[in-house]
């Protein structure tokens, strides 16, 4: 499949080495603006490493990661330091093992996500300390936005509960709502459906499709749940042992022999054939 005409994210020749281990080896792909791109692969294929490179938690050993905003601004993510990727390039992410602020309420979690605009409105604390209306209005607007996203994920009634008290599936949704509160142009979801039951993952599909349609958010997701991947993604990139083995539409990915081999292994006679070829 050819590269999308209007990519929001372009990853070129990305490699990540940890000592002698090559976790990601010369991977190039791109994600189209306003679409959902899925990154799949067996365990240990290097999906989360790619995510960590994109969101600035790792510095890639080699390669370029370019993010193009709709207004034409371009950010080279491999050069931005951790928090600036979220702040300037507006890439938000969730984590495979949920990382909420468990001792704070759900509403507080969503307000922390709006830290940078609120910080500006509070005059870097000075105006806020004096209790000026500028900050109060900004905070009310932030609360409204938090309420909107809580409503979208169906958790408005849990707003005042500590995030750590919520069941697993709800914590996943809070994390997505929190990421959306940062107004991201690209949302990176690391296994959002992990641990969800059938009904919950169907709801997740609906939520992600809604976000794409209404908020023009481009989404990059790592997922093992094929009902999510096949149901909503516009494009699928498959990694195996740190190498990209497939890049195309969800319908094509099902029939790709390399992908099937990576997930299910190969027939016995194929192994024998391959062994014969290399002279074993």
């Amino acid at each position, binding site marked *: 499949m050819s590269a999308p005409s209007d990519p929001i994210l372009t990853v070129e020749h990305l490699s990540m080495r940890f000592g002698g281990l090559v976790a990601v080896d010369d991977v190039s792909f791109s994600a189209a603006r306003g679409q959902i791109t899925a990154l799949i692969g067996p365990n240990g294929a290097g999906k989360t490493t790619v995510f960590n490179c994109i969101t600035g938690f790792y510095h890639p050993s080699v390669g370029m990661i370019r993010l193009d905003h709709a207004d034409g601004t371009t950010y080279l993510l491999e050069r931005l330091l951790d928090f600036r990727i979220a702040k300037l390039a507006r890439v938000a992410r969730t984590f495979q093992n949920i990382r909420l602020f468990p001792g704070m309420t759900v509403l507080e979690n969503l307000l922390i996500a709006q830290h940078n605009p609120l910080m500006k409105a*509070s005059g870097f604390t000075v105006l806020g*300390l004096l209790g000026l209306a500028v900050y109060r209005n900004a905070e009310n607007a932030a609360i409204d936005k938090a309420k909107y996203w809580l409503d979208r994920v169906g958790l408005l009634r849990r707003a005042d509960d500590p995030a750590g008290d919520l069941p697993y599936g709800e914590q996943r949704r809070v994390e997505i709502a929190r990421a959306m509160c940062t107004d991201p142009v690209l949302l990176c979801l690391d296994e959002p459906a992990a641990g969800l039951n059938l009904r919950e993952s169907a709801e997740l599909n609906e939520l992600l499709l809604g976000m794409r349609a209404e908020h023009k958010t481009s989404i990059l997701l790592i997922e093992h749940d094929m009902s999510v991947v096949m149901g909503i993604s516009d494009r699928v990139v498959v990694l195996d042992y740190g190498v990209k083995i497939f890049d195309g539409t969800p319908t094509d990915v099902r029939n790709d022999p390399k992908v099937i081999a990576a997930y299910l292994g190969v027939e016995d006679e194929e192994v024998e054939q391959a062994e014969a070829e290399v002279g074993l």
Partner: protein
Amino acid sequence: MARAAQTSARPSDLVGALKSGALAAIVAFGLFSLLIGIRTDQGPTGALELEPRLMALGAFLAVAFVGGFLRGWLAGERLDFASYLPDELKAAATQVGRFFGLALLAFAIVEPIIFYDNRYVLDLGILVLTYVMLGWGLNIVVGLAGLLDLGYVAFYAVGAYSYALLAQNFGWPFWICLPIAGFLAAGWGVILGFPVLRLRGDYLAIVTLAFGEIIRLVLLNWQSFTGGPNGISGIPRPSFFGIPFTDDEKGFAATFGLEFTPTHRIVFLYYVILALALLTNWVTLRLRRLPVGRAWEALREDEIACRSLGINTTTTKLTAFAMGAMFGGIAGSFFATRQGFISPESFTFSESALVLAIVVLGGMGSQLGVAVAAFAMLAAFELFREFAQYRMLVFGIAMVLIMIWRPRGLVATRTPSVALGKPKEVPAEIVAEARQ
């Protein structure tokens, strides 16, 4: 109650408890048989004599046995006294708790009027309030931002020496030196903050501990600047906004047509430290509701999540250090003007430990808890002043008991900074602690 009765009826528990008591007694015998059981004395001929003290040894063993027995007896029983109380009483306690802070504040305001003639109580009040302020200041760093700081006394020292040196060398008045001392201490907070940005938990604690010692050693050895071990004496006393507390026609008493008494100055000092402590409290409560305060708490909860949300963790940590240090510095300059004399001896590690103990005992992050803990700690110190030998022993036992009974401090719940409806307290179990 029923459960307690049920468990105590089982004979196996009794045997277990007796075993536990016997074990404790045996260990105590091993420890104390020579230390307590035998006393060396000089006999009439000058030779060394051994005098057995079986009674004293017996008493120690008995205490150890009872302690061990109780431990075995109550093992598995949660020491949850609250569950034995009737619900009406608990509801009443919550009601009282709501107004407890206000009652405490009211008492703090009228204290100098009630105890006007009691210099000792007034001095003690000033001391308690100084530690309340220090506790509140450290609470920003430890309780909110979750950065374990064992060198807080360094900022107290910086504030004290800043005021002492500025006032002595340039003759600047207290009210100008106070904010300057605060800013200087905040500057040192940032200086400490930079090298420890990447550290957490125990490692952070070690570096801050060293920082506190470095500041003290510099003060001790930089003789030409700080006066070294002799300290600085004759630090100017504060004036009532320009009117000194002296026994002449220009003094405070004469200006207001009062009879001169040294108590005026003490009462004034009392209200100064009360105002400074309340300022600390007000600023902290305000900051908690601002983005910077929420970012501090988020940092305590999960630093990686903070970074993923675009929060600059470097500046967030530095502002926490600077803010905590600033209040420490202001308290320090108050200390200098109250004492009139400062030396490095006042800024040893035990001060840091005391302030940290106040914060931990009060419940990290809780303003009311810290105030109560400061009061309890210093009042207990004063009560046991006559039994100086046993002071630390009692202090240690009390700390152990409190850590068993309330491991997260007196006020363990966290109040959310914002809520759509009625704010619900967050239980301590899920709130992150400074150690991570």
